[in-house]
């Protein structure tokens, strides 16, 4: 690492001489000598959101390509903290500051997939196929194993052989609808990340 090889020597000295002599002659180089990088957010669409990680609930600003016009696809290209937010006041932790790479993670799922019994790979299926098959499996299991009454004759109306874990990062609206559906099916094996 120490020292300089011949090639670098030539390069350096050549540039130094040419540059400084041109400047001395009062000739500006063809490109500007100094210019800050262009500010990239000027006309992007700003959308307010909440960081999906921990429960501080930091406000974030998501910057989408384009100005919101119909023909522009608003891919999110930058996220920073919302300075108006009383808790985070514009700050974000290393996770919140990296959210852009969550949205565009190479491991985002894009199509419904199916893994057959005994298989060692995924196959892509359509939403219709997936939802129909799941609905059929759930109904068959519920019909076969639903307990209306216990041996002692108590009405219990419960379904114990299928369970569900709900998402701790899903919205209240998702959670509310999920709960409503799950109880209508009589499911009891129902939990979320709160106690884990």
């Amino acid at each position, binding site marked *: 690492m120490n020292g300089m090889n011949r090639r670098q020597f030539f390069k350096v000295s050549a540039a130094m001489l040419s540059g400084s002599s041109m400047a001395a002659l009062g000739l500006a180089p063809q490109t500007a000598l100094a210019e800050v990088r262009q500010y990239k957010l000027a006309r992007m669409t700003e959308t307010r959101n909440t960081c999906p990680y*921990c429960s501080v609930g930091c406000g974030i600003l998501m910057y989408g390509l384009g100005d919101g016009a119909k023909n522009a696809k608003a891919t999110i290209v930058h996220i920073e903290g919302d300075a108006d937010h009383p808790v985070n*006041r514009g700050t974000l932790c290393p996770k919140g500051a*990296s959210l852009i790479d969550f949205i565009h*993670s190479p491991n985002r799922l894009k199509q419904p997939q199916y893994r057959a019994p005994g298989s060692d790979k995924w196959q892509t299926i359509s939403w219709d196929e997936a*939802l129909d098959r799941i609905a059929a499996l759930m109904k068959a299991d519920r019909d076969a194993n639903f307990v209306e009454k216990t041996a002692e004759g108590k009405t219990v*109306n419960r379904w114990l052989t299928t369970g569900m874990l709900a998402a701790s990062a899903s919205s209240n609206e*998702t959670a509310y*609808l999920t709960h409503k559906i799950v109880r209508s099916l009589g499911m009891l094996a129902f939990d979320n*990340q709160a106690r884990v």
Partner: protein
Amino acid sequence: MTNHWVDIKNADIILIMGGNAAEAHPCGFKWVTEAKAHRGAKLIVVDPRFTRSASVADVYAPIRTGTDIVFLGGVIRHLLEKDQIQHEYVRNYTDLSFIVREDFSFEDGLFSGYNPEKRRYDKSSWDYERGEDGYVKTDPTLQHPRCVYQLMKQHYARYTPEMVERVCGTPQAKFLQICEMLASTAPANRVATILYALGWAQHSIGAQIIRTAAMMQLLLGNIGMPGGGINALRGHSNIQGLTDLGLMSNLLPGYLTLPNEAEQDLPQYLAARTLKPLRPNQMSYWQNYPKFFVSLMKAWWGKAATAENNWAYDYLPKLDKLYDLLQVVELMAQGKMNGYICQGFNVLAAAPNKAKVLEGLAKLKYLVVMDPLATETSEFWRNAGESNPVDPSKIQTEVFRLPTTCFAEEDGSLVNSGRWLQWHWKGAEPPGEARSDIEIMAELFLRIRERYRREGGTFPAPILDLWWPYANEANPTPEELAKEYSGKALVDLPDPKDPARIVRRAGEQLAGFAELRDDGSTACGCWIFSGSWGPTGNLMARRDNSDPTGIGQTLGWSWAWPANRRILYNRASADLQGRPFDPQRKLIYWNGKAWAGADVPDYKADEPPDTGMGPFIMNPEGVARFFARAGMAEGPFPEHYEPFETPLGYNPLHPKTPAATSNPAARVFARDLADMGKVEEFPHVATTYRLTEHFHYWTKNVRLNAIVQPEQFVEIGEALAKELGIANGERVKVSSKRGYIKAVALVTKRIRPLTIEGKTVHHVGIPIHWGFVGIAKPGFLANALTPSVGDGNIQTPEFKSFLVKVEKA
């Protein structure tokens, strides 16, 4: 949190214990640095490791994992012995003077009523003594030998500084220094706050640890005060919301509870939950339970829920036992479950004892995973070599993986730790064919409903009758759902005092839960969220951040449950005359006619301060409880029990009672008990935790986070490394009775050996973020090591304390 993030800035003393706020909640932790910088607050950190929080603390003390009750019980003893308590507060706002039943006892580490076969207590003796008027007997002089004050003093007399040092390994001098700092907040104008998280919850005695801390705060008069409280820093962005909405085996929205199978009729169910006051003139707010319940049933089953059919009471499943995650994994492993749906939940990594979860998943007929990201759970059948050595051909489970939107691609609200419901807006379309969870759940439900309509089947009524009023049935909007849980009038609602006057028109949104009725005329999916989308619109979307008092209340920012109240129990921040205990930090006060101030009063708004109504309006006593009555599984006073995998093998407080070694009422199955390791074979104490650079198992899919913390490691102290001949950066194998992981050893000064009962105990720190899916360096799921045993109250697994063996890989 009883308080909220910004309010931390009002604290004089901040105790971080059972958590690592700087690491796990950096942006909330800023209010700790603000309190330090602008109030001169002092920060105390108690943790087995010298953490990122400790790096900016004024005082750090080490503690052996799982012994927090001894430490906090020691603080309680110190406060009682030195009489450093907030007298006016505890006399008037707590149960110190209440007299306990004569048959209540505590001997040899066990409370009265224990049944060792069932590992459960008969709690009937854990109660107050009642007078002839039906109210609880009290002794305001606190001299009665069975008053709560005397019983508590006696209970914690054993928790001496010597005992703390012996059991926790905390040097006495450090312990006493911390006692003094906490005691400095007993005067009415000084306040301490406590910030904790899963470092307390994830123990077999987790709930009781937290209770001990709350008791300490009550003694100091710090509950209800700005800058005070007991503050759970929740882990996930909406874990508070999901708990509030009751997505647990035994709950309904708003902390209503599902019926037990013994509760065969509605009046019986309601009577048990409609709590009558235990003292004169108390609010006992749960007296309104029927209003909340009937409004929920109307939101779920609409016209099908009628007075005649007990508001569709039979549509609700009835519990024979809890079906928490540990129970469900046990049933799976026994082959008793057929289907499982994981909505954004990586259960293979998140539940204890990975091998058991793997066995369970492999016995399912079908598994449905909804997630924006690839997860280990969805690929549990994939052979990933040593870290997931399965044979796919032997796993017959059908697996469906459904791509979902992420936060950026949807509208909706999340509840933060401070109970703020904050609305967010969609900024882009999801990738590929991903759909929102709402759409997936709705589509799935409609397909099931259609099959029941077409084919019939078992008990289809609750499915066919489910109220489904959404404009696009296959994709309800977040706005429709938010309005539904917030609540509306179903018919014109007359004013109870003047029936000629209509207070709400049919279809109008309600302003709050005070408007709910038990006659089927209101619908509300979650009573504590009532008013979040009120008659004036979506209050969760509010963005007025003004803070006129300067104490950080911002009542116009979003909406907090309940009733936009920011600090719970805030009535307790004022004295019996209604004057703020601390005039510098006024929260609410009595203005002669009503309660006013910087918060929504947690009290009857026009109740004069001196009528004897207590500030803890949800409790039928009206006051806070030191004596938990039947509220806890292990006993009315927290007692220390060792972790299930204990480095001692006995409980130093009860060395001669094996039944009292570990929590006698913990959630544990026979198979899991057999899977516990002994110190002879696994000599090192392990604890698992998060790092600030990562979020659980998500961010190993996120490049920037993978860059700043790329590879799995475990932390061991220099002394243990020397003993085992392990150099910094070398690979090690860490094993427990249940499995092993291999990782880089990070040798540090930040973990020092502790002397416990004369023995040297080494801690091993195990960050959890790696696995066999992701773009960070592949690693092992840390739950390969963890034991399957849960707290007796909330069944939270003991991820924070177990035994391992460390060796060179």
